[in-house]
């Protein structure tokens, strides 16, 4: 429902300070910016009714009644289940009546008293009710004798039982599936709504509460949905049958029973009402508790910094106390209700005994009838009780449902059409962005933007400057639709900016604010996040997988979920200026260079690993780099900086463990200290006789450590950094040495030997310089290295990747692969110089971009925390740049960098933008950043005070000159 726009509402310049024309608010007759049409008392009269109507439309509320919701989405399934239940009754009845026939006729032979055989399976239509005596017989049946009858009827009984069971199974499965489908639908709908919440709403809701609602609070609904319609009908039917039977026996008793049941059905729900109210409170407090716990996790640094842990404890204890009270009240009320429930349900037999007994004694009724009524009544309480329970459950889930959906319909939700999946490439943005009388207020008080009217060309480069409260940042957020104006209009080429589908905005406008959120994915996934507006190419599946996917999507549609495939290729390469995955990398590198992130990603790449099987081409090139580097290292300049790996040499810059393994540990088996305890390593050491040598070496290390570290206090940082033995363990070792009194390793008890043996594993001759490894020892360790490799059992083959100059090592980092050696200790700036050399070698081989590609696979961690803050921000800017937006809004996004970096990044962005005729709105964190822009907008107190070319503004002086002078 859209209203035609009155002509006078088309944008026109509004002088600042001028009273806003009446129609401007109505210029946005969309549901989306309901914040545009708030219940603001100062909105001009006559508009309120109009906007009021719009709000109702904007709410686009969910079904209030859970029943209607269930009925609307599961009608056919409910009908099928109902039909199955009715059909099942036939077999249920059969399974009840057949035993009677088996006993009476089959075993006792009642039907065979008069004849040897009786007809079986007679098929006739008895019309005697309408035509007296008229019976149409279609089939006379088989004649069976008693034994045959017994056998046949027994099998009929068995068949009935099986069919009955099958029905039960089918009905339950159907119910379960329907419930799960509805649950899926509801969860999806709620999540869908989160994506359409107005941005401001996220300032009010806690994320943990949203998660709890979707995850936990709607869960019980799934179980109820299957029974929502079937249960009451089924139970009602049963109860009705029993009542009719009682009525047939005695009117009076029947009426008494009905009255008592009626009383039960009125009183018990009333008793349960407080239980429901408490249940609602329990739900809300539990949800708030989840929110509070998440807050504690979010603000844990602040809690520690300010020593507020006990204040937090007090708060949580208070909440838990409140929850306890609610839950305890709940128990009390619940059991009170149960008590009355029991009393009332026993009131009926009480009445039957009393009244029926009286009738029987006085002769109004025979005893048999009273017993019959009692028997019939036996079948009555359980369906009635279940009906009452069902009603209780219904109210409970209805409340839960309302509680949840109330939180999911804030005012001003974005209409779903604006988030439609586009069929093709997104259209262009338009040329002219016109703001007219835009006002932004926080809760209707402070005006952050006050009657801003501006015309921005989307292809122009414009800077916005102003003081810290000038509203410039708010303007930036408005341009990215992050904040919805309170009143005024923004039009793009005459069309409402807020009616623009999100994909157009997503593809054509980029916004980067002061802080960036990164998803806990790889750098690459984060960078390409902005290109995933629609599936570009479907994923390829083999026939089996495809069939599986098809049925998966069919099921999705049944639950109202979209059949979108996350495995499809969503990356819109064209947006980035590439034609496909193959030539995307250069675009990525260009963007990374623009934000000066390429070096960082390059070093991440050097520290990253690549599986040779996945990238054989890259592995081969890295091997080439290894050879090239080896040649360079032979030259004089780099002599003595790197000790290359050679399987026939002891590497003095590697630890004993590394020398023994001579490879990269894969997994935990040989990693770190595990190698010393590994049984296979032990066996190798024993076989080569090295174990005794290592024990001797361990003893020697222990002696040195005791000598060096004895005088130090246990908390001395040197322990942590240098000692082989921890401060706690040192006294024990000293005691051991004292007991030994200078005797050799042979005198050491076996248990201590094992401990001593672990010491030398970490020993690096070049670094620790204790002179423990002489030429002879080197030879012996080399021997152990060889026998370790030769005898390595098949099961451990995957636990180590051996160093081999001719082979790429998938377990080692790229840098280690290229270096194939270890930096020599104590050579000044060896790391830097070799780093430069590696970089040169990679450049020469044209491998730099490939290394960056590996670096792109680095996982940035939760919230990007594995990257330093500046790199996070740079990645955020790169993400905004890679889609080559028609209009880029940079909202003080460079503020965290140092001054020179700020200017360089600005210049890079500007250069590319002017070259390609793209627009930039640069909200400057420092006024002097505005100088190279074509147009400058000066803001103060939420208003635009001046705009024009920098030179004109400078000539005029005023605020522009002031801001520039103070920058």
């Amino acid at each position, binding site marked *: 429902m859209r209203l035609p726009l009155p002509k006078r509402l088309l944008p026109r310049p509004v002088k600042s300070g001028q009273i806003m024309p009446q129609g401007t608010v109505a210029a946005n007759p969309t549901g989306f910016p309901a914040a545009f049409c708030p219940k603001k008392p100062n909105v001009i009269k006559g508009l309120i009714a109009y906007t009021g109507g719009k709000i109702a439309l904007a709410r686009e509320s969910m079904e209030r009644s859970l029943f209607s919701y269930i009925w609307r989405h599961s009608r056919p399934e409910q009908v099928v289940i109902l039909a199955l239940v009715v059909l099942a009754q036939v077999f249920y009845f059969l399974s009840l009546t057949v035993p009677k026939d088996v006993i009476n006729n089959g075993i006792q032979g009642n039907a065979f008293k008069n004849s040897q055989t009786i007809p079986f399976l007679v098929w006739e239509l008895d019309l005697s009710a309408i035509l007296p005596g008229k019976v149409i017989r279609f089939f006379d049946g088989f004649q069976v004798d008693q034994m045959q009858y017994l056998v046949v009827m027994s099998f009929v009984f068995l068949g009935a039982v099986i069919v009955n069971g099958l029905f039960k199974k089918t009905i339950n499965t159907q119910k379960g599936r329907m419930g799960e489908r509805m649950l899926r639908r509801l969860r999806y709908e709620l999540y869908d709504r989160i994506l359409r919440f107005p941005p401001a709403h996220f300032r009010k809701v806690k994320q943990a509460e949203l998660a709890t609602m979707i995850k936990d609070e709607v869960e019980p609904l799934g179980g109820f949905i299957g029974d929502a319609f079937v249960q009451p009908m089924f139970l009602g039917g049963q109860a009705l049958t029993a009542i009719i039977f009682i009525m047939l026996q005695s009117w009076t008793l029947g009426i008494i029973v009905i009255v008592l049941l009626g009383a039960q059905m009125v009183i018990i729900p009333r008793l349960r009402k407080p239980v429901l109210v408490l249940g609602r409170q329990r739900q809300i407090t539990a949800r708030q508790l989840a929110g509070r716990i998440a807050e504690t996790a979010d603000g844990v640094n602040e809690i520690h910094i300010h020593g507020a842990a006990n204040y937090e404890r007090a708060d949580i204890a208070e909440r838990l106390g409140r929850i306890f009270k609610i839950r305890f009240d709940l128990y009390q009320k619940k059991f009170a209700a149960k008590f009355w429930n029991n009393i009332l349900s026993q009131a009926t037999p009480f009445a039957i005994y009393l009244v029926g007994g009286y009738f029987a004694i006085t002769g109004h009724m025979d005893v048999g009838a009273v017993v019959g009524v009692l028997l019939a009544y036996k079948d009555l309480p359980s369906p009635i009780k279940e009906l009452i329970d069902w009603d209780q459950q219904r109210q409970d889930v209805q409340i839960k449902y309302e509680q949840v959906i109330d939180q999911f319909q804030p005012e001003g939700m974005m209409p779903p059409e604006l988030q439609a999946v586009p069929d093709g490439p997104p259209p262009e943005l338009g040329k002219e962005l016109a703001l007219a009388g835009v006002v932004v207020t926080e809760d209707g008080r402070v005006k952050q933007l006050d009657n801003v009217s501006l015309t921005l060309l989307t292809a122009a480069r414009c800077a916005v400057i102003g003081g810290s409260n000038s509203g410039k940042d708010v303007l930036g957020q408005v341009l990215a639709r992050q904040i919805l104006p309170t009143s005024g209009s923004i039009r793009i080429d005459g069309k409402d900016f807020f009616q623009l589908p999100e994909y157009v905005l997503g593809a054509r406008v980029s916004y980067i604010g002061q802080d960036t959120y990164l998803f806990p994915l790889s750098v690459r996934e984060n960078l390409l996040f902005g290109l995933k507006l629609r599936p570009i190419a479907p994923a390829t599946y083999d026939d089996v997988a495809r069939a599986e996917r098809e049925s998966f999507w069919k099921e999705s549609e049944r639950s109202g979920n979209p059949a979108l495939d996350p495995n499809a290729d969503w990356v819109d390469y064209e947006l980035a200026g590439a034609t496909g995955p193959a030539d995307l990398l250069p675009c990525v590198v260009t963007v990374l260079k623009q934000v000066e992130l390429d070096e960082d990603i390059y070093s991440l790449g050097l520290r990253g690993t690549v599986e040779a099987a996945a990238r054989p081409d890259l592995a081969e090139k890295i091997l080439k780099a290894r050879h090239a580097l080896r040649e360079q290292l032979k030259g004089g300049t780099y002599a003595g900086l790197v000790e290359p790996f050679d399987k026939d040499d002891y590497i003095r810059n590697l630890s004993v463990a590394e020398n023994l393994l001579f490879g990269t540990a894969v997994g935990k088996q040989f990693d770190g200290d595990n190698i010393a305890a590994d049984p296979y390593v032990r066996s190798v050491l024993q076989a080569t006789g090295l174990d005794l040598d290592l024990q001797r070496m361990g003893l020697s290390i222990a002696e040195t450590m005791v000598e060096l570290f004895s005088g130090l206090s246990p908390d001395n940082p040197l322990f942590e950094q240098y000692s082989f033995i921890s401060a706690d363990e040192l006294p024990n070792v000293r005691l051991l040495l004292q007991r030994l009194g200078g005797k050799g390793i042979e005198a050491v008890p076996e248990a201590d030997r094992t401990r001593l043996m672990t010491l030398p594993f970490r020993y690096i001759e070049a670094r620790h310089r204790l*002179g423990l490894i002489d030429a002879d020892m080197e030879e012996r360790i080399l021997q152990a290295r060889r026998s370790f490799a030769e005898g390595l059992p098949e099961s451990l083959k995957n636990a180590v990747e051996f160093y081999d100059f001719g082979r790429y090592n998938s377990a080692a980092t790229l840098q280690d692969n290229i270096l194939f050696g270890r930096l020599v200790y104590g050579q000044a700036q060896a790391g830097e110089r070799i780093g430069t050399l590696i970089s040169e070698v990679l450049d020469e081989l044209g491998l730099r971009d490939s290394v960056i590609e590996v670096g792109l696979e680095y996982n940035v961690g939760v919230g990007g925390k594995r990257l330093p803050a500046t790199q996070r921000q740079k990645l955020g800017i790169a993400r905004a740049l890679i889609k080559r937006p028609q209009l880029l809004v940079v909202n003080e996004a460079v503020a965290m960098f140092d001054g020179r970096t700020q200017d360089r990044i600005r210049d890079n962005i500007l250069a590319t933008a002017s070259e390609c005729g793209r627009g930039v709105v640069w909200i400057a964190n420092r006024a002097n950043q505005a100088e190279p822009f074509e147009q400058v907008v000066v803001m103060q107190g939420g208003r635009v005070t001046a705009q024009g070319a920098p030179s004109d503004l400078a000539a005029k002086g005023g605020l522009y000159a002031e801001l520039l002078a103070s920058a």
Partner: protein
Amino acid sequence: MNLNEEVELLKGVPIFSKVEQAKLKLLAFTSERVNFAAGQEVCHQGDPGDTMYVILGGVADVLIDTATGQIAVAEMQRNSFFGEIAILCDVPRTATIKAREPLSTLKITKDMFYRLVAEFPQMAVEIMRELAHRLEDTNEKLRAATKAA
């Protein structure tokens, strides 16, 4: 060079002469030995620094930036130390030290330095003595320079 040889070497350095053998060994074990190739800079004038160096072998030039370019003002040989000013006064490096021939040094961090001085006041006296010598030397040069002018 292993640890014991290094300790022998350190014993010959005047500022460490009064430090007991066990402590010297700890110093040697926990301090980094850094080797510089001829022509390599150990530290650069104006850079921040928090380490001092003791020369264990080789010769280094002390260079000062002037308006007319770098000039060599002194040379340092085995057993001399430098970099203590940056540690003591928290100022940037006051001179550039460049290895004239392959240079072998012991790198002592700020923490280690203070711990040593606290534990061995004699070491502080030795350092003072050396600093006084350098001051005297500078004064001498200043006198000669004024006379020449």
